[in-house]
C-alpha cells in the first residue's frame, strides 16, 4: 500500500513537472521558468518576452544577453518611471540576487525582440538561449500567448 502511495506521489510530481516543462531550463543554480512572449501586433514592430529567473546559488548572477533566431537583434530592456512618464531603455544586464529571483514582467524588465524574423502568433513556441555571467547558457522555450 505504501509503495503505491510513493509511486503515486512520484508520478504526480513528474506530471506536475511535465506540466511546467517546455518552458523551463536549469543550469547550475539558475532556473528559468514561465517564459512567454506577447503576440506581435505587427512583424515590423519589436516584440517582448518575459520570464522568471530563480537563482539558487550562493552568489549573484547576471543575465548578460539572450540569443534566438526569432529576431535580428535582442536587447534587455527596462521600463522605468520618471516624472510620471514611463520610459523604456536598454540595460546592460539584469542581476539576479543570490538565493533570490528576478521577474521579467510587463511594465518592468523585458527581453526586447527587435526585427522579428517571423510573426509571433498565439500558441507558437520560441526558443531562447539566455547567457548568464556565471551559469553560462540556459535554454528556455517561451510560449506566445495573450496574457
Amino acid at each position, binding site marked *: 500500500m505504501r509503495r503505491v502511495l510513493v509511486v503515486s506521489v512520484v508520478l504526480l510530481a513528474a506530471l506536475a513537472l511535465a506540466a511546467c516543462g517546455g518552458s523551463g531550463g536549469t543550469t547550475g543554480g539558475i532556473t528559468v521558468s514561465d517564459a512567454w512572449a*506577447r503576440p506581435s*501586433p*505587427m512583424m515590423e514592430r*519589436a516584440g517582448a518576452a518575459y520570464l522568471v529567473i530563480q537563482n539558487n546559488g550562493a552568489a549573484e548572477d547576471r543575465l548578460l544577453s539572450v540569443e534566438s533566431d526569432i529576431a535580428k*537583434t535582442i536587447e534587455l530592456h527596462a*521600463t522605468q518611471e520618471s516624472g510620471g512618464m514611463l520610459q*523604456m531603455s536598454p540595460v546592460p544586464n539584469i542581476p539576479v540576487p543570490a538565493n533570490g529571483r528576478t521577474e521579467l514582467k510587463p511594465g518592468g524588465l523585458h527581453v526586447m525582440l*527587435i*526585427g522579428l524574423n517571423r510573426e509571433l502568433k498565439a500558441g507558437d513556441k520560441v526558443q531562447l538561449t539566455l547567457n548568464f555571467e556565471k551559469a553560462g547558457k540556459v535554454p528556455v522555450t517561451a510560449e506566445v500567448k495573450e496574457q
Partner: protein
Amino acid sequence: MTRFRWIVPIAIGLVLAACAHQFSGVAPNPIGPAPDFALTDENGQPFNLSDLRGKWILLAYGYTHCPDVCPLTLSHLRDVKKIVDPNGDQVQVVFVTIDPERDTPDIMQKYVSHFDKLFAQKFKGLSGPPEEIAAAAKPYHVKYEKKETGSADGYSMAHTAEVYLIDPQFNWRMTFPFGVKAEEIAADLQTLRQNPEVK
C-alpha cells in the same frame, strides 16, 4: 408575507454593494465636459473625439514602437470591452499616438486591429501632425518626450500611460493609473453605467 422576509437582507445587501463599490479610477473634481480634439483616424479620415458622443469612450495614448507598456494597456482595454460590451457598439476604445513622426494612419490601423479582432466595433487609432497631437494630449495632462536610448529599435518615447473614461454625455468621468486591471476598469464602468448619478 413572512415567506418573503429573506428578500429584505438581500435587497439591503445589493444596495450596500452598489454604494460600497471602491472605484479604481480617480474622478476629476469637478466632473465636467471631456476636452475635445481633432485628429486623423486609422482610415485617414478627419476625426473629432466628440464624434463618439453617446458612447462610453476608453481613451489611451501611446505609440506603436512600444512593445511593453502599450500592448499591456491595449490588451487591458480589449479585456474591458470583452467584459462590458463584447457584441455591442456602446463602449469605444480610442488609442492616440504620441509618436507622430513614425505612426501614420496606416500603421495605426494595423496596430489597433491586432487588439480588436474579437469585436464587430473596431478600435479607433488616431494620429496627426505633431501640433495636433500636442493639442490632443495637453488637456488630458498627457506628457511625452522623445528619448534617444541607443536601442537598435530607434528612439523611445517616454509617456504617461493613464486610461481616461468618458461617458455618453461626453463628460470626463475617470482616470485610471497605468497597470489597473481590466476587471477593475470594467467594474467602475459598470457601476457608473448602472448609477449615472454616482460621482
